[in-house]
Every structure is written in C-alpha cells, then in structure tokens.
C-alpha cells in the first residue's frame, strides 16, 4: 500500500507538540526541508535529538520549536560554533542532555534492537558520566569488570532522507551512512523523504542497498533537494558557503529571524526554496558522475541444479 503524501501532510500527521524528534544524518542527508515545514507549522516544545545538531537544530531552536536538546557534538562542522544553541544553553533557556558520539549512537542501537541498554567500554572521562545520570556502570557478569551502559533512545518520530525509495518506503541509501538505519528502527514513527520515488523493481534490483525497509516507515515524501545546505551523495554537493554564511547570519536572533522569514515562512515548500536559490547555486552544487560497477545477483529461475 502506498504511503506517499506531501511533506506538509506527513509533518501534520506525525510530528506533534512535545514529541521527541530525531532528524537523522551525519553531515550527509540532513533533512532541512522537514525542519522548515515543522517551523512553518509552528510545532512547539519538541525535544530535539541528534548526534550533531548542525544548522538544522540551530534553526529549530531559534524558531522557538524546541524545549530540550540531546546531542554529542554541538558545532558548525568545519566552521565553529552553533551560535543560537550556544546562546540558548548559556542563558539557561534550553535544557540539554549530553553524550559522546558513541554513547549517543549506542542509545539508538539499544532502541533499534529492542534492548534495555547497550554496554560500551569505559573511557575514563568521568566528568560527563557524573553530569548525565543516564550513564550507568554495571558489572560484566562474565569478567567481573565494569562496563558503561546507556539506555535506549526511542524517538517519537524520526525523519530520514534517502536517495531513492519506493512508495511503500523501501529505501536505497549510499554514501556516509551515519545513524540513518538505527534511527529509523529505534523510532515509533518514521517519515522517509527521498530525492526520487522509484518503482519497486528498482529497489529489488539491489536489495543489499535497502537500508531502510518499508516495514518501519509510516510516510513517504518525494522531496528533491530536501537536504540542502547539507547534501545527498551523487545528487548535489554540500553548500559550504551557506555553512560559512550561517556563522554571520546566526550572530543575532534577529539575523536568524530574517533568514527564516525569507527562506522558510515566505516560501510554501522545498521546490520553491530550491528555485529561489537560483541557477548559479544549482550549478555550483552539481555532483558530477562517479558510477559504481554493477553487480550480478544471479538469475536462479531456470536452473537444472534446483531440479531434484
């Protein structure tokens, strides 16, 4: 059964005030279009979880959508600070819960696997453990040594972007994989956005590349260029210029407000956003071509070997 709907419909249906949201993607595939739709719909009191909050959560926090942040690296990658998040934390306006990358992703692993916790080797960096009571230590019953454990993270809703998907949500992803798969399996509801909606046959031609199965997907949205200024491998490049510009834009709340007016509130959807960026940006972000070699899965429909 098709799960196709517009992104606006999917957000309306699946993202509610007070939800725990995980918009996934480690530098790659960050679903900015979904955040912009959440901002337009004025959803409030969200707990935002992401290993790297990136510009997407700087924008959601500046737009007043968030109550709390769960994270492991709060920087503008390759640039510096996430200024709105930093200001909100320093002023005490935003609650936060902090992890390291591996402890954060281990929480998703536990959530995605239906386990009560995930163990990890200890790191000796006890200051973070002391500040965040979600970290516990237990005894390894086999060796008697201490291991660090973290509880499952089970988002109410995850947004995950893929290069291509069929209408039921089976999705092919390639390039940096981040926490895409774990986030989708850990979540109660999953909104899948994709650059292309393809026939089921295309998915079935390469099942090893299906990292998100339709089984866990609730809504499928066709959203080309969903991830700009992040990127989608093989479709368009990362817009480093915007990441650099954000450092200036986000110096003041007013700067962000006027950015949001121009690029979010005054636009109906992602198609309008991409058109507004203009041909010069489209050309600059073009991905070029670097094809993989096809693989042969084999055709076993007519082989004597199977006739016993």
């Amino acid at each position, binding site marked *: 059964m098709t799960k196709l709907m517009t992104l606006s419909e999917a957000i309306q249906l699946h993202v509610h005030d007070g939800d725990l949201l995980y918009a996934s993607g480690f530098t790659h595939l960050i679903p900015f279009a979904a955040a912009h739709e959440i901002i337009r719909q004025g959803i409030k009191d969200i707990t935002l979880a992401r290993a790297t909050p990136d510009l997407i959560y700087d924008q959601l926090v500046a737009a007043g959508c968030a109550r709390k942040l769960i994270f492991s690296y709060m*920087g503008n990658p390759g640039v510096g600070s996430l200024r709105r998040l930093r200001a909100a934390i*320093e002023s005490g306006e935003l609650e936060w819960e902090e992890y390291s990358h591996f402890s954060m992703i281990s929480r998703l692993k536990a959530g995605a696997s239906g386990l009560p916790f995930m163990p990890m*080797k*200890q790191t000796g960096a006890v*200051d973070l453990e002391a500040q965040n009571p979600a970290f516990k230590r237990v005894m390894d019953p086999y060796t008697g040594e201490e291991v660090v454990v973290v509880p499952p993270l089970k988002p109410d809703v995850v947004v995950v972007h893929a290069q291509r998907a069929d209408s039921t949500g089976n999705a092919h992803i390639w390039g*940096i994989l981040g926490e895409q798969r774990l986030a989708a399996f850990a979540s109660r509801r999953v909104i899948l956005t994709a650059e292309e909606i393809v026939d089921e046959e295309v998915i079935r031609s390469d099942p090893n590349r299906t990292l998100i199965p339709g089984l866990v997907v609730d809504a499928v949205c066709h959203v080309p260029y969903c991830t700009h200024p992040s990127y989608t491998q093989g479709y368009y490049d990362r817009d480093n210029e915007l990441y650099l510009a954000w450092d200036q834009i986000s110096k003041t709340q007013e700067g962000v407000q006027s950015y949001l007016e121009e690029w979010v509130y005054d636009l109906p959807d992602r198609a309008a956003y991409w058109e507004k960026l203009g041909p010069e940006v489209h050309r600059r972000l073009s991905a070029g071509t*670097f094809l993989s070699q096809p693989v042969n899965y084999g055709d076993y429909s007519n082989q004597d070997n199977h006739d016993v």
Partner: protein
Amino acid sequence: MCENEYNQNELMVVNAARLLRDHDVVFVGVGIPNLACNLAMRTHAPNIQLIYEAGVIGSQPSRLPLSIGDPSLVSGASSVCSMYDVFSLYLQRGNVDVGFLGGAQIDRFGNINATVIGDYQHPKVRLPGSGGSMEIAAWVNRYFVITPHQKRRFPARVDFHTSIGFLTGGDARQRTGVRGGGPKAVVTNLGLLEPDQDGELVCQALHPGVTFDQVQENTGWPIRQADNCAITLPPNAEELRILREVLDPKCIYI
C-alpha cells in the same frame, strides 16, 4: 598565495606528520590533522590507512575536504560503514593506532577539555563537546594533540575532562582500565611537549628560534624542560611544496 617562509600552521602540520609511522591506522578529522596525515602519506609513510570519523575508510578525496562528512571522502573510498560500526568495529575493538585531538584546554597531564569553560550546569562558555573525542582518547593506541601554544589553552588543570590523558598522573589512567596508551605528544607552534614517566607534559623539543622561556610564559604551570630537549628540523622544501601545491593550494588551513 602562501607566505614564502613557513607559517605556524605549516610548522605544526609538518611536525605532526613526522610523528606518524608507515602502516599506522589513523582515525582522523578534517583540517590540520587531515593535512598532517596526507603529508605523511606523501613523504615517509605511504602505507598509512585513514579512517574518517564519519565512517569512511581508505578515502582518496579529489579535493581538500572541508567537513568531516564531505562527499569527496566517499567517492573512490575503499569502504563506508555506519557510525556505530566505525566506533565499535574499528575504534572500540582496538583496530586504530593513532588519533588526533584538539580542544580549548589541555592540562599538565594531557587531559583535554572541549566541553565547557566554567561550571558545567551554568557555563561561562559552552563549547561543542566531545563528539568522538571521549572514545578516541581512551581507545586508540596513541594520540597526538595539535594546538597553538597559549597560556589560556594550557591551564594546570582542565575545567572539564572531555577526553582523558593521564588524569592526575602516575598510574591514574591505567587504573581506569582504558585500553589505549594516551597522549604521546602535543604539537604546538613553539615546540613539542611529551609526557614523562609520570604522565606529566614536559618540553621535549623547541622549534627553530624559540626559547624555553617562551614556552614557560605560555604555559599555565611550571613546565619542565627535558634534559635532552631538542631543536626540531625546520619544514623542508619538499614538505612545504606538497602542502602548498598539492594538499591545500587555496591556503584554507595553512
């Protein structure tokens, strides 16, 4: 264009590159550590294997990557894996020789703070936080820190232990049970600091033209000078050529 003489970033990149050994498996981020690894690969250590934190192994980027997740790291790489896999199968399992770390503060015993200046709950300055550095510091066989040498960056004790060095010195690190060997060198624009037997950082080498007094003036504890304190060799013409012409022609990091 780059300067004709070498600048302080070039000095740090070159000295960090020289610390790497052939066949090292290196967990690397972008920026100066990435330049150091790629310089070592093109000089004395052609068989270095690079693992990027984003889960990319054996990258052959066709341009200088500007973020840890740059798409150019993927095209032509030998393998890509998930974030959980890169931290567990590669790092936690003990398959990584070398890591590079940075931070706002590094203290007398090589502990690093990248989390907060002031009180954690009421931060004076909120920094980005650990990312992967908590795990890297604990689980790689040895790690290096590259940082400008300034007093505020070298306090006697860090405000927050984001990544552990030798904690309070002696066997304090060992007693935690972490697998890795800890910091082996701190590369600054003034020289090289290395831990002594007790885990305390001492001045092991000075860059050409630098005096030990300069190191002491820019360090927040009474630092010792090693008896055999050396003078580093200046960056040579070939190292500078590779850096300027091949690795970072637009001088983004150098």
